[in-house]
């Protein structure tokens, strides 16, 4: 389904209307412009921190690093633990109470403790991000690995597949869609973790900037940071979407079509000169 030009125009018109109304509301002082600055002020502040002072980029990099590193560590640990839990029932039995305890605890409450353990630097934020985001990859991987199709498993067993083959060729690919869904949740949680960590105590990062500008009652700059964070969130989201499109190609019709066409070209020589011909016409 293609989005038509008309739809784009409508989207743009709606956005412009909201911004226009907001601008007027702020200028006419319908709302306290000190608390809710006009979009034009926010835009100016954004241009300033991005290009004039360029203040933002270093902090952007710090927060992005904390998020991505935390995400990678949390996801890898979650994935590995889930694989172990799926393979060894004993492991699952004994780890379950801890996993549930960890799940029901608001893990963000661990943030001050983690800062106490790891200090005020970047590594504490990485750990906070990892702790916050670890759960969805763990649960989703475990669910995905255990939720295999019984008939497919029997098919593999009847073909004398080894445990390793069953894991790599049946369970893992079968779990990929739900694992990817877990990773998508995890990356936005990691960003939250990094920002909260910076709120608590930091010398750099977008969370710190946000706090500093708000204390200074520089609301336009605070909103500009918010826009920057939205931008970061969008970039991360987009990367995950691209990964999903590649790794779970069989859930995307266009990808399937592309791959089928590619393979037909790649193995064209094998298709030629086949004896026998079709025994049946595909009736469907």
């Amino acid at each position, binding site marked *: 389904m293609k989005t038509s030009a008309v739809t784009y125009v409508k989207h743009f018109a709606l956005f412009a209307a909201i911004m226009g109304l907001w601008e007027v509301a702020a200028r006419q002082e319908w709302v306290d412009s000190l608390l809710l600055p006009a979009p034009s002020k926010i835009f100016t502040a954004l241009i300033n921190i991005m290009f004039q002072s360029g203040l933002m980029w270093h902090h952007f990099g710090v927060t992005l690093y904390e998020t991505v590193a935390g995400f990678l560590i949390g996801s890898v640990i979650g994935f590995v633990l889930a694989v172990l839990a799926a393979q060894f029932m004993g492991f699952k039995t004994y780890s379950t109470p801890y996993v549930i305890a960890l799940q029901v605890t608001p893990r963000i409450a661990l943030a001050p403790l983690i800062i106490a353990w790891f200090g005020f630097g970047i590594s504490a934020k990485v750990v906070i991000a990892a702790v916050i985001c670890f759960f969805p990859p763990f649960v989703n991987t475990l669910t995905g690995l255990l939720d295999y*199709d019984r*008939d*497919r498993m*029997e*098919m*593999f*067993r*009847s*073909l*004398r*597949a*080894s445990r390793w*083959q069953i894991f790599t*060729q*049946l369970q893992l*690919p*079968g779990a*990929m869609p739900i694992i990817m869904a877990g990773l998508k949740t995890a990356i936005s949680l990691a960003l939250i973790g990094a920002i909260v960590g910076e709120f608590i105590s930091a010398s750099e990062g977008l969370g710190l900037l946000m706090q500093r500008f708000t204390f200074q009652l520089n609301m336009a700059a605070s909103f500009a940071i918010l826009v920057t964070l939205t931008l970061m969130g969008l970039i991360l989201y987009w990367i995950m979407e691209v990964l999903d499109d590649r790794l779970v*190609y*069989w859930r995307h*019709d266009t990808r*399937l*079509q592309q*791959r*089928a*066409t590619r*393979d*037909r070209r790649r*193995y064209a020589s*094998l*298709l030629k000169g*086949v*004896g*026998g*011909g*079709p*025994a*049946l*016409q*595909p*009736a*469907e």
Partner: protein
Amino acid sequence: MKEGRIATMADTTIRGEGVSKIFSGSVVAVEDAHFDIRQGEFISIVGPSGCGKSTLLRMVAGLIDITSGNLTINGSVVSEPRNDVALMFQKATLLPWKNAMENVLIPTSLQGRKITDADRKQAIDLLQLTGLSGFEFAYPDQLSGGMQQRVALARLLNTGSNILLLDEPFGALDEFTRETMNMELLRIVSEVKATALFVTHNIAEAIFLADRVFVMTPRPGRLARIVDVPFGKDRTPDLAQTPEFNRIVSEVRSILGAGH
């Protein structure tokens, strides 16, 4: 049976003596089944739901242990899945991340060797044999149910096994497609001289395909009777109209009725 030879006990491929399966200590799925299946024979298994047809097949496949009795293939006791036995299910059980050719190649790749162009060529040949020319690289989600089942049939044949266990393989298909697939199956099985065990709910279908029909009755699952079908290998749909055919249908039906 191989041509020009008279079947003897030495031809026995699959032999069951007092085979029983009791699940979780109390559910008697199969009780005291005795049978001899010869090389190249086509056996249909009929019976109402829950009479142990799938259980019998899974025991022969080595997927589940028998509770008591003795089950041998070519003289050796069945204790695990074997290379010469392959299974096909009611569901196609294709892997959605593999295209048709790759799905057919699953038995090859599970042998742990690298897939060669010769393997691919063979897979493509099998897909064309089962009527899927033009769909060699399509993914399961791009295929209809009937076409998926053809891929599964091609994969079954690619195992190279000469004992084929088919558990209602076309049960989910419409009648027309099912009939075509049955004819095709009959042709292929006799061509590769495989031994086949074919489970179905449909009595006419069972008789049409088989050299012998295993009639099973439920609670507990019993192999009530083995009915001979004396029609030879070359069969056309007209056969189902003959009085002899209908006599056998009635016979099977009465055995099933008596079991209730």
